[in-house]
């Protein structure tokens, strides 16, 4: 019988859990990961990574279709949906195996099964055959993540009404599609299917898409998606669905109270997520749950001594990198590392990988004003950037928000080609607490898209050169 007592038992092998376990091993803690399905969690298997593979295929298609503009004659082009999906699955598989290797390298055992708290210092794991094992855990880290929220009337059926999961592995291409919800997930699928030629309509209940983003960026995104062929209905909601054999008719109520019906082949429900708080043994513990999310202190400690929680399970922003970072903070706190600070949520960047991409970090202009800042705002459009023109990507904007008094970079908001790769420059700037002066003095290489970041900062202080 193997030794089953651990300093740290991590329940959930997603980007929060496996990173936390590796950090624990680095700090000399005896740690294990309990995982019920796939290492890497939703992120690697059914989220971030496979969607990026799909979107890359869509982007390649877009380039081929516009090849003429770049001097290529490509004749008739076509795609094979199965191959696009297969490539995406292959990417996910490769990375899942990579996580297994990393855990092995750090001597972190993976225990397959459903983990749940089973009394003080104990975790019970039930494997797929129903066999139960009890682990002794000095500390338990709950990292069970989240799943798609279900709206009444829009219950996913795996056939006509999809979640991200079915949308990731379509067997055939629908002709038309309704995407309910315009957060990052909804918008990415809308963009993907639109690029494959599906007639896509997005329905959003609030008055703008990507509502977590800066209003100006939301508006530009709206324009860009409409131009790309996506229909968008804001301040609208789906009030009912009538299913047929291979299509459905949705009733959509708009802001003015009018309703209309729309018949589409498929509907994707992307209306947020709920935490996986069920069946993990919270009953009878002091772990507090608020609307499907576990309450913790800033370091991830729950109300129950020795029980910690991180990632999607603890609430928004629902992002893999936030989960990983929280995992590291919790583990370092458990290990007694000195100088551990809570996560600064204003430094967590968010990315949406549609075409065009959207990326941001920190306060939007409105949030900054609400927080009492007198702001200075800088803007620089892609059309003023040499590299953007050369790439054939002249549409987009880099917006920066500074505190007028201190020069603190409060937020940065971008839309356009490759902005998801650019945002981290501002992330570092925020983390190092640079002011506008440090950013102005930084040399940005020419010709790159990053020059727009520089110009946006300059513009905030009325010094922009190229626009």
């Amino acid at each position, binding site marked *: 019988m193997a030794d089953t007592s651990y300093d740290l038992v991590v329940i959930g092998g997603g980007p929060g859990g496996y990173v936390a376990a590796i950090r624990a091993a680095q700090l000399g803690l005896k740690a294990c990961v309990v995982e019920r399905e796939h290492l890497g969690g939703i992120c690697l298997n059914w989220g971030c990574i496979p969607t990026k593979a799909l979107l890359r295929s869509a982007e390649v298609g877009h380039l081929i279709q516009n090849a003429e503009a770049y001097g290529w004659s490509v004749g008739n082009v076509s795609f094979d949906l199965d191959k696009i999906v297969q490539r995406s699955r292959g990417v996910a598989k490769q990375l899942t195996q990579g996580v297994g290797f990393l855990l092995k390298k750090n001597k972190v055992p993976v225990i397959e099964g459903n983990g749940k708290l089973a009394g003080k210092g104990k975790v019970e794991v039930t494997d797929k055959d129903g066999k139960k094992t009890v682990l002794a855990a000095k500390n338990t880290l709950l990292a069970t993540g989240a799943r798609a929220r279900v709206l009444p009337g829009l219950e996913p059926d795996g056939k006509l009404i999809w979640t991200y999961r079915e949308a990731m592995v379509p067997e055939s291409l629908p002709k038309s599609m309704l995407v309910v919800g315009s957060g990052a997930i909804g918008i990415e699928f809308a963009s993907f299917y639109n690029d494959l030629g599906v007639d896509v309509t997005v329905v959003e209940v609030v008055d703008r898409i990507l509502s977590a983003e800066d209003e100006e960026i939301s508006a530009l995104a709206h324009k860009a998606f409409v131009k790309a062929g996506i229909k968008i209905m804001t301040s609208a909601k789906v009030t009912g669905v009538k299913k047929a054999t291979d299509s459905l008719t949705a009733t959509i109520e708009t802001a003015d109270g009018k309703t209309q019906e729309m018949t589409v082949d498929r509907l994707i429900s992307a209306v947020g997520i709920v935490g996986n708080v069920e069946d993990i043994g919270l009953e009878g513990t002091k772990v507090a749950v608020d609307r499907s999310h576990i309450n913790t202190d800033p370091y991830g400690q729950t109300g129950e001594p020795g029980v910690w929680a991180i990632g999607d399970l603890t609430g928004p922003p629902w992002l893999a990198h936030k989960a990983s970072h929280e995992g590291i903070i919790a583990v370092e706190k458990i290990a*007694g590392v*000195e*100088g551990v*600070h809570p996560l600064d949520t204003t430094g967590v960047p968010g990315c949406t990988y549609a075409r065009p991409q959207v990326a941001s970090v920190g306060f939007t202009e409105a949030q900054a004003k609400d927080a009492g800042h007198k702001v200075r705002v800088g803007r620089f459009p892609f059309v003023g950037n040499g590299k953007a023109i050369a790439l054939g990507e002249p549409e987009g904007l880099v917006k920066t928000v500074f505190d*007028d*008094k*201190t*020069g*603190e970079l409060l937020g940065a908001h971008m839309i356009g080609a490759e902005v998801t790769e650019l945002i981290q420059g501002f992330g570092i700037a925020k983390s*190092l*607490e*640079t*002011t506008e*002066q*440090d950013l102005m003095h930084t040399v940005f290489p020419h010709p790159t898209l990053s020059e727009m970041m520089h110009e946006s900062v300059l513009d905030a202080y009325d010094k922009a050169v190229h626009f």
Partner: protein
Amino acid sequence: MSVDILMPALSPTMEEGNLAKWLVKEGDQVSSGDVIAEIETDKATMEVEAVDEGVIAKILVAEGTEGVAVNAVIAVLAEEGEDPGSVQAGSGGAPAPAPASAPAESAPAPVPAPKPEKAQETAPVSAAVPSPGKRVFSSPLARRIAGQNGIDLGALSGTGPNGRVVKRDVEAAMAAGTGKAGAAAAKPAASGGAPMAIGAGPDPRKIAGQLDMVYEEIPASGMRKTIARRLVEAKQTVPHFYLTVDIELDALLAMRKQVNAAVPEGVKISVNDMIILASAKALIDEPDTNASWAGDAILKYQSADVAVAVATDGGLITPVIRDAQSKSLSTISAEMIDLATRAREGKLKPHEYQGGTFSISNLGMFGVREFAAVINPPHGAILAVGKGEKRPVVRTTDAGDELGIATVMSATLSCDHRVVDGAVGARWLNAFQKRLENPLSMLL
């Protein structure tokens, strides 16, 4: 800019240790993290790591030296682009007495104004006022906010990576009303490149948990946190020394009786009131003790603003009797009763306990014979007053030495050596003693 390498503390209680071995010699290039020396105490041996990269310019404490004080400068590191030959030890507590040694840098150090001008709202602002002679790692935003608010970065403890001072540290100092430039002096140990976090002791919760010790946890109040921070700051940054004298009180007690018989009903002058007045008069007699260290200058005050420690349920607070030298005993008495009452009720206004030029702590009423108090920066000194009690005294008369009985009180002056040298402090104590032993002089 050169960096002083300080004697590290292996434990919070360690005061000195032996420099067992140097692993580098002068002229060696070192990188951050390189082991450069070994330190030992009776309990442990520890490696000293370089916290910066550069060239070992000078080794100041030889291998095999025993009893090296914690935070003594043991070597000096020249940073890139600096001539190691021109480097000298900074002012960070060098073992050799080097009073007011100039900052080590060859670059002309711009002397900052003690009170930086309030920055214009949008104008680019220069960095915060630095404590001279010490590199303070800080974020650009922390420097900007500190500069705009007159906060001395060198007086803060950084909580960023490797002790870097970040925005939250400056905001915390602003919220607590500490770290004003020109007030607190340079902070050699904890802010810049101390090899270990000094004062970061073992975690008592952890130890209690390991040993199953039972305890009640009382969350620290704002006042308690301020006391903790200020006292650590004082003990870490202010070079204290102590002078004690015995003072005969019989004449004073006799005068007090007369005075109390003469003042209106309800007024009662205490010995403490007379000590406050005597201190204030002595501060005017010997103004060199009525002073503060401002990093690059000594500020000598015109008036004697005496802060008096008052114990409250929440901790210690020091209301200030301003211009005490020109107040009457009855005024001081009335003010003291009012301030102490409101201090205990937590109703003092900030201007009533901030500032002051000198402090007094009196534990005589608890039967304490004598003690040494911790200086309350930026004050240059604090007086610790013990109990007045009958003691045998030897008097020299024409008939020779004879034993007598007198009411004697021991008073200990803690001095900030950067401001108050030994002889200066001694002169003040003499003046204080003279005032108390010839109490009529106080009424003039």
